[in-house]
């Protein structure tokens, strides 16, 4: 699907904006709303100036997350295809009634007579002192509820393709965009293309261990893998991309090959999605009983705000490196991974980030 001739690199932010522009242009029934979509900062730049190209179809809203969700649902069941943007996932706790009781159930509770084609974008995050109520990673909540699709694109390429897929999907799709991924770049074709929802991406083939991850911690996993490779470890890294539908067959194939599974998730351990994947592996009669499963998650307490604590809360490449080393029962040379992390502050995506949010 990737256009091999394209060499254009753009950021995750630009990919969102480009996909949204193309969707609005090609689908006259689509519209975009949310607080900040047409303001000077345009939802972190993901919607900047779109209101000028699509007057009446890109607009500001009151600060009423629950009602906005209901409005999108009402418009979706009467012929439109809405995109709703929330600047933080934390704000959507106000909208749980409409999302869980209505959006997720609408098709089911009326016997499949009406579809709900709507997209809800939510920003998740970490660091910069955003703290308890501006940087939660609540993916497991939404993945728990049948009737919603939950996707977590990690690259600009996947983001564009999955946003376009989400807009063509006849189900409610929640897109979780990690704030730190918004600054990342990848090669992105200019034309519209789709990356399928519900299919994971095997990024590196390997035989020693399977590492399943997604979103921002996938980047840490890939960093760790550079040093695992130097140590002769052959890890198979899977970017899950969609939590629901969950591409279990791909995980199963990989685990059957490697016999070891590490799941890395940027959310709390208790009741988290990493546990779901491990449980499915453990209960599958086709998978060897002696398969080793481990997970790396955030500790079970709210995220700290102080930069002094950030380095002790979030998952870093060294944590992943150490975990793999333990699972393989191998003494690996840690110097590379440690050197790479030296002096790194984990409260910002990189040294270019200067806040304020």
């Amino acid at each position: 699907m990737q256009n091999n001739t394209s060499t254009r690199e753009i950021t995750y932010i630009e990919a969102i904006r480009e996909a949204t522009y193309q969707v609005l242009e090609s689908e006259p029934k689509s519209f975009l709303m949310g607080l900040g979509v047409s303001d000077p900062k345009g939802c972190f730049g993901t919607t900047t100036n779109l209101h000028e190209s699509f007057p009446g179809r890109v607009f500001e809203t009151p600060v009423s997350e629950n009602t906005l969700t209901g409005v999108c649902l009402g418009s979706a069941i009467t012929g439109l295809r809405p995109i709703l943007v929330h600047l933080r996932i934390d704000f959507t706790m106000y909208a749980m009634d409409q999302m869980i009781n209505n959006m997720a159930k609408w098709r089911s509770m009326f016997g499949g007579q009406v579809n709900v084609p709507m997209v809800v974008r939510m920003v998740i995050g970490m660091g910069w002192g955003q703290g308890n109520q501006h940087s939660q990673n609540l993916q497991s909540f939404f993945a728990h509820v049948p009737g919603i699709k939950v996707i977590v694109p990690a690259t600009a390429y996947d983001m564009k393709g999955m946003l376009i897929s989400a807009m063509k999907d006849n189900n409610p799709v929640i897109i979780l965009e990690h704030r730190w991924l918004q600054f990342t770049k990848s090669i992105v074709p200019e034309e519209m293309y789709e990356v399928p929802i519900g299919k994971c991406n095997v990024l590196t083939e390997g035989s020693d261990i399977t590492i399943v991850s997604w979103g921002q911690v996938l980047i840490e996993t890939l960093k760790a893998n550079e040093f695992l490779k130097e140590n002769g470890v052959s890890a198979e890294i899977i970017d899950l991309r969609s939590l629901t539908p969950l591409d279990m067959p791909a995980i199963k194939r990989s685990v059957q090959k490697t016999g070891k599974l590490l799941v890395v998730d940027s959310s709390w351990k208790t009741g988290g999605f990493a546990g779901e994947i491990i449980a499915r592996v453990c209960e599958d009669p086709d998978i060897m009983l002696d398969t080793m499963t481990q997970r790396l998650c955030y500790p079970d307490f709210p995220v700290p705000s102080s930069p002094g604590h950030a380095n002790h809360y979030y998952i870093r490449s060294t944590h992943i490196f150490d975990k793999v080393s333990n699972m393989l029962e191998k003494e690996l040379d840690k110097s590379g991974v440690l050197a790479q992390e030296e002096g790194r502050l984990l409260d910002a995506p990189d040294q270019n980030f200067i806040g304020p949010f």
Partner: protein
Amino acid sequence: MHELDAEKARAIYYDLVRVRRIEEEIKKRYPLQEMRCPVHLSIGQESPAVAISHAINKTDYMMSGHRSHSHYLAKGGDLRKFICELYGRADGCSKGQGGSMHLIDLSVDFLGATSIVGGTVPIAVGAAFSSKLQNENRVTVSCIGDAVVEEGVFHESMNFAAVNDLPVIFFCENNFYSIYTPLPQRQPARPLTDLAKAHGVKAVSIDSSNVFKTYMMLDSLVAEARRDKKPLFLELFTYRYVEHCGPHEDDNLQYRPDSELEEWKAKEPILVAQNHLKEAGIWDQAWSDQIEKRIEEEIHEAFDYAINCPYPPIENLGSYTYAK
């Protein structure tokens, strides 16, 4: 206000009696334990639903909440499919997935009723937004009760509708009770209409005891909302005769003052309607007998159909979760 012609009056009376008789039959048969879902009967408060349904067009949207039988039926929702839904049968309006509190009939633009107080209010606003964006000349009626204004989502929705000039009618049936809790224990002594006015939305209160007068008032108010493409809040005073949920009279519980009950029963909507027709010289006993018989036959046919309809096939279980 225009005069009510005889044909329209008869059609309204027919619907009023029809909704009552259907609800009475549910009440009668409910103890047989074959309708295995909660029922929130609209006996006593049929007038607002019938009046608004005659005041709007067939292609206008309507949504409702847990006490939605009257709205579904008055809007023209299919009776057989409704009864099948109460019995959890395959031919139910929601294919047996919904039960009494989740009714839908898209053929008459009844977009859906759900069970959580205030839940469909923003969805109705969304439907009105959809009509606006697609340049349709529809209004959307959001049927709510007096407790809905206690939910935050009501205020959010009214604010959204007002700021975006959406043709949505917040149609509030004030029956003065939420389950057993009376209005004065839930809200301060101020008119519900003040809430709408604070949002810059026109608001009118109507005593719905006389269905014809109610209809005539609604007819011009709906026309105004449609013409101006603005939201409207309507409060309809009405009264529930039976328990909040279930088929029984519950006045033995003494949660409503005797005098209040007597006052409302003196304004019983069907009696008031009959007297109105008599005074207007439209009443005809033979016609009344005839429609009662016709309604009775229709109801029995619908119940027979539902009782003989199979449960939904097991293969359907879980098949509606996602669209292909």
